[in-house]
């Protein structure tokens, strides 16, 4: 028989005794009134006591389970406020065509397409990778719709090249996407065409991919569900109790809901609906924003947020800056939307109770965003919604106090705020002067604002302990290179950023983020005292032993509570989702 629902409401019965008491721990509560404790008592998913074990004896009843932490370090669960398990994992799990040859000849590509079609009969899309232009040139052939039609005339085919600069499609794919010689080029790419007829030749360059993606069936819910399942599995086993999955559509929400309904959504998730179709199309955007999002709501899942791409990134110099890029006389980058669009949208979303999470890497983009929030506050008053400035790679010093004044969260991501070959190379485009004040946790915190961290996987590692260590060191965690990116903050500040501040960013500061009576039991037990040694090359090696969300044991590394009858959702080593970071 299925288990009964057991929700708590005003007049529901309350037991006298705790369900679980964790004693003999070194418990870092994040509660300034009582920074340390020895034991916690949990009942109905909530903390009913945070004190010494002796003081909690009154909660011990005949059915109370008491677990001895044997001096282990215990703290509130971690908050990763910006990440993308779907984008990282779904491509791996999709059953797309994978030619599997570094530089296939046209003949090998043809064989691969035909084999895939035979294994996947019907009239569905054939989508996959890779081909390369030079083997076509070598064979004296021209890649494009004519060649692809000769291989597969009656099923839509779209194949990416290994440089990810070109997608080759056949006539059926163009037809389904409604593309012909009258179709205009997108702003960020183009269709290659016959020069004389203007007819697209089946090679879609850069941003033109999106026109094909829009015509394709979305990534199946089953694939997305598997991606999210592995994502939350990893996060739970690394002590994350709350996270934001920034960019969702109706398919992704469905996948998260299925995971939630099956009891496997072991992290509190705020999902942000994409405003733009630049990563994947959102077919029910306005239905979701108007209210359909509530259908997915539970204690673990909320979609009361919307994600925007205000500007670009450092590599193509598309971050929108207040002053020109290094070695440029006037190039300041790109703002994807007009300031008027941004302002009207922020005011509108704010009045609907929807959090705006705005991708702002350049200091110019965040300046426009803060102006838009100021206008929303002026027109709507404080709606209770704290909007979120995502990435915040560069912030103008004059904007640091505005995060507090306007109740805006400064989210710093990806968690690559320390020198590595990747980060040093990628970020150096901003120039040495700007690099000094990159990811300015300290500036925001000193000005009284709320700073949070996001791993932004797969841009950087999803491991929150790397993020925590390097907030404190701002140095490479694996070597002894003395160089440093930006200003470090103290361990106490960093712990606050990664726990309570995250709860503020989720709008859950009343119910999680610290260990206080009345809050949810969202806590973790780890293998080391974070204060016992210098942070460098120490904190990131932390192993999580136990993770609780709402008092539910979601992760038990060693099965420590199994004998006592508490079965965790996940056990054992964390799953390996990524190679070792550098």
């Amino acid at each position: 028989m299925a288990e009964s629902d057991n929700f708590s409401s005003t007049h529901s019965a309350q037991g006298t005794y705790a369900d679980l008491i964790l004693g003999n721990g070194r418990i870092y509560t994040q509660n300034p009134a009582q920074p340390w404790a020895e034991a916690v008592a949990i009942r109905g998913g909530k903390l009913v006591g945070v004190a010494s074990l002796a003081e909690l004896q009154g909660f011990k009843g005949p059915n109370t389970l008491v677990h001895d932490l044997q001096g282990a370090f215990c703290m509130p669960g971690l908050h990763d406020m910006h990440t993308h398990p779907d984008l990282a994992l779904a491509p791996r799990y999709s059953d797309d065509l994978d030619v599997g040859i570094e530089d296939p000849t046209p003949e090998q590509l043809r064989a691969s397409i035909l084999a895939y079609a035979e294994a996947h009969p019907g009239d569905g899309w054939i989508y996959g990778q890779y081909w390369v232009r030079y083997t076509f040139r070598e064979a004296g052939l021209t890649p494009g719709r004519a060649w692809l039609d000769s291989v597969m005339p009656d099923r839509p085919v779209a194949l990416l090249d290994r440089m990810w600069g070109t997608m080759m499609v056949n006539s059926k794919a163009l037809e389904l996407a409604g593309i012909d010689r009258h179709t205009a080029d997108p702003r960020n790419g183009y269709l290659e065409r016959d020069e004389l007829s203007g007819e697209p030749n089946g090679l879609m360059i850069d941003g033109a991919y999106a026109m094909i993606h829009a015509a394709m069936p979305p990534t199946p819910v089953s694939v997305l569900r598997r991606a999210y399942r592995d994502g939350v599995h990893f996060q739970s086993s690394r002590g994350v109790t709350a996270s934001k999955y920034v960019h969702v559509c109706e398919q992704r929400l469905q996948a998260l809901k299925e995971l939630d309904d099956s009891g496997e959504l072991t992290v509190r998730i705020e999902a942000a609906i994409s405003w733009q179709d630049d990563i994947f199309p959102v077919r029910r955007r306005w239905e979701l924003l108007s209210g359909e999002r509530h259908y997915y709501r539970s204690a673990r899942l909320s979609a009361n947020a919307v994600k925007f791409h205000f500007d670009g990134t450092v590599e193509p110099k598309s971050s929108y800056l207040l002053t020109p890029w290094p070695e440029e006389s006037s190039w300041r980058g790109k703002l994807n939307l007009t300031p008027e669009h941004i302002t009207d949208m922020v005011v509108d979303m704010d009045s609907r109770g929807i959090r705006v999470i705005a991708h702002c890497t350049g200091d110019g983009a965040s300046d426009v965003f803060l102006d838009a929030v100021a206008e929303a506050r002026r027109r709507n008053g404080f709606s209770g919604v704290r909007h979120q400035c995502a990435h915040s790679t560069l912030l103008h010093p004059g904007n640091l106090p505005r995060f507090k004044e306007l109740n805006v969260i400064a989210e710093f991501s990806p968690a690559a705020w320390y020198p590595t070959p990747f980060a040093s190379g990628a970020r150096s485009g901003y120039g040495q002067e700007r690099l000094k004040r990159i990811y300015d946790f300290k500036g925001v915190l000193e000005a009284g604002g709320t700073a949070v961290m996001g791993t932004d996987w797969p841009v950087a590692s999803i491991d929150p302990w790397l993020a925590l260590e390097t907030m404190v060191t701002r140095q490479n965690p694996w070597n002894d290179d003395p160089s440093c990116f930006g200003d470090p903050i103290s361990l106490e500040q960093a712990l606050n950023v990664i726990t309570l501040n995250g709860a503020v960013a989720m709008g859950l500061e009343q119910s999680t983020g610290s260990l206080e009576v009345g809050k949810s039991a969202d806590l973790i037990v780890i293998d080391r005292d974070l204060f016992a040694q210098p942070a460098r090359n120490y904190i990131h090696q932390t192993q999580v032993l136990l993770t609780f969300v709402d008092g539910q044991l979601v992760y038990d590394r060693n099965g420590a509570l199994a004998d006592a009858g508490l079965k965790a959702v996940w056990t054992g080593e964390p799953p390996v989702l990524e190679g070792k970071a550098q």
Partner: protein
Amino acid sequence: MNPQRIAVTVVSGFLGAGKTTLLNRMVRRAEGSRLAVIVNDFGELNIDAAIVSEVTDAVYSLQNGCICCTVQEDLLAQLSSLAQLQPRLERIVIECSGVSDPQRIVQTLAYPQLRGQMQLDMVITVVDATAHLQLDGEYARLARAQVAAADLLLLNKTDLVDATQLQALREALGLRTRIHESVQAQLPDALWLDSDLDLQPRSLKPLVRVSSDDHGEMFSSFLWQSPQPLNVERLRGWLQALPRDVFRVKGLVLLDQGSKAHWLQHVGTRSQFLAATDEAQATGSRLVFIGRRGFAGWDALVEGLEQCQ
């Protein structure tokens, strides 16, 4: 080609193949023309400071009229701003990184924002005769991509290999690609500069030799003219089958499709057509060929062209 558009030459080639030597020659050859050279590293060019007349925003203006700058991340924006320069540039040379596929730059040049202002003239890939066949793994793949993207291969350092090695290289580089052998990256002007080729009718004969002192001993050029329109599909087929000794074809063609005049440019194995402006409409087709001196197939070419009518 089209006088309204800036011609773009893309120079590719693996590390150490001789790109910088070639670019140096191009910079010095710029005398009097409006040439911009975009290189990976200005310092590598080793330009004598005395001939730099002005430096603004990391753009070096040389006394001979050439301007030099380094490749920027946003090549699209960089090219758009170069297109605005007055007086207008005639040609832009872009150096690709030694470990990159030039296709990326070729694709950037076709962006709608640039299409009306500039046009890819040719991709020249410098191949190191002493090292090309020794590359392996990802380097070998990149070098293959560079060779495949080329309209012209400059097979460099041929003095450092023997005849057998040279033959092996020629075979490895494929039968279709136009190859010019060189020492010290010497590239004849006729192969990359076409500004001296004029299309003025010379006589009433369909094929006339165009004399040009600059072509030296290595190349000859011919002008073909006809009042008849050409069939597009047959013309395309003819272009694809051009012998390797013909390096370039350019000019105006009258196409049967709507009787419109188009600029045609064919380099290596790549053809480009562009609708001509009104004043060019009236007269028939006029094409200039540049081929290796001693090439004996001119009559067959003309015959083929006439079959396109």
